[in-house]
């Protein structure tokens, strides 16, 4: 049953973010979130490798961290009310998640104790059960029931099969090719891409920047980003 694979053992974006903060013994504040943005972006590579199905969830959080980081770096960087709300929401989720981690500890300690309260063993099934039909059982009702289940099975399959992981590496190399040896605009690179792709492209750009492969410049907030290849 191939598509029952779970995201076993792999940490979600909120959990991972909390871990970065707690490793540094930080409080959950916007300033501190900005400080661990780099760690989180580095971690995306691992996600992409080990659990690509989770990449989209991670990117959604990464996008918020980038906003926070930008605000700390660029003094008059302005956020839309929705972006502000998104950042507040991220902080709130971290706080909720953190307090529920304690609940999980409590739960696990009970589970591990293995102190089970047993119900009575079900009575053995009779050899000759009495036939007890009911008015709900008819040819049309049985057909309607299996038809409904058929469509839910199909939905389950499509949900799994339609999934296409975003390949970070591919975006980085695509970006290198697009930029080539000449100066490019990010706007033209990101043209006709969906939101997730634009975010990945932007992350790929930051990646190149970190590796000193490119230099970037932007005249004012929200204006075009100019990419210049190094060397």
């Amino acid at each position, binding site marked *: *049953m*191939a*598509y*029952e694979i779970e995201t076993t053992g792999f940490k979600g974006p909120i959990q991972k973010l909390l871990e970065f903060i707690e490793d540094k013994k930080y409080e959950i504040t916007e300033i501190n979130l900005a400080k661990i943005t780099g760690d989180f972006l580095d971690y995306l590579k691992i996600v992409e490798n080990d659990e690509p199905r989770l990449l989209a969830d991670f990117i959604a959080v990464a996008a918020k961290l980038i906003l926070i980081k930008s605000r700390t770096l660029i003094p008059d960087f302005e956020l839309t009310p929705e972006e502000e709300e998104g950042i507040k929401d991220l902080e709130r989720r971290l706080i909720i998640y953190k307090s529920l981690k304690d609940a999980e500890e409590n739960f696990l300690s009970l589970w591990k104790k293995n102190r089970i309260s*047993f119900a*009575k*063993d*079900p*009575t*053995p*099934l*009779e050899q000759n*059960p*009495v*036939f*007890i*039909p*009911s*008015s*709900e*059982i*008819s*040819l*049309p*009702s*049985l*057909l309607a*029931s*299996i038809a*409904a*289940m*058929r469509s*839910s*099975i199909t939905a*389950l399959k499509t949900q799994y099969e339609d999934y296409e992981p975003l390949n970070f590496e591919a975006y980085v190399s695509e970006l290198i090719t697009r930029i080539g040896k000449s100066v490019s605009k990010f706007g033209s690179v990101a043209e006709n891409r969906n939101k997730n792709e634009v975010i990945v492209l932007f992350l790929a750009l930051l990646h190149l920047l970190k590796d000193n492969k490119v230099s970037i410049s932007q005249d004012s907030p929200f204006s075009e980003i100019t990419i210049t290849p190094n060397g």
Partner: protein
Amino acid sequence: MDNTEQKIEAVLFAIEDPVSLKKLASIVHEKEEKVSEAVESLKQKYASEKSGIHLVSHDSGIQLATKPELSPILEELVKTEIHESLTPAALETLSLISYLSPISKSSLEYIRGVNSSFTLRNLLIRGLIERIPHPKKTNAYLYRPTADLIRHLGISDKNELPEFDKYQKLKEEIENE
């Protein structure tokens, strides 16, 4: 604290069948004499108190059971259960078993996405389905509609179910997973 009595009560509760003193002693790791005393004390407790259950001794052993004067209530219980209408979960399971029989519990659960132990038991007790040993797995079963159900539906064979062929593919799909 000595809790032999408590242990014995729990064991008698969990096991439906009569249990011999000897077996009880081995389960609770105590001497038969001590177990016998504890059983006596339990018997007193249930007899004296306004309890709905009591301890019965047979040749084959000791057993917890409902008091005989309460049997009308249990008849009432059976009546209530029988007249209960089929839940949507039960109808769903019945439909799958009718169309895809013989089918295993794990295939059923895979399609329904929920645990089906309780529903299967219910359908078995009502004589709507029956189980046969799984040809390949030990201690596993395959489920199929009873002849009574087929008759009740007014057909002579399950393949007369509406759009029967169309849904056979569903079975292959699941089994290929």
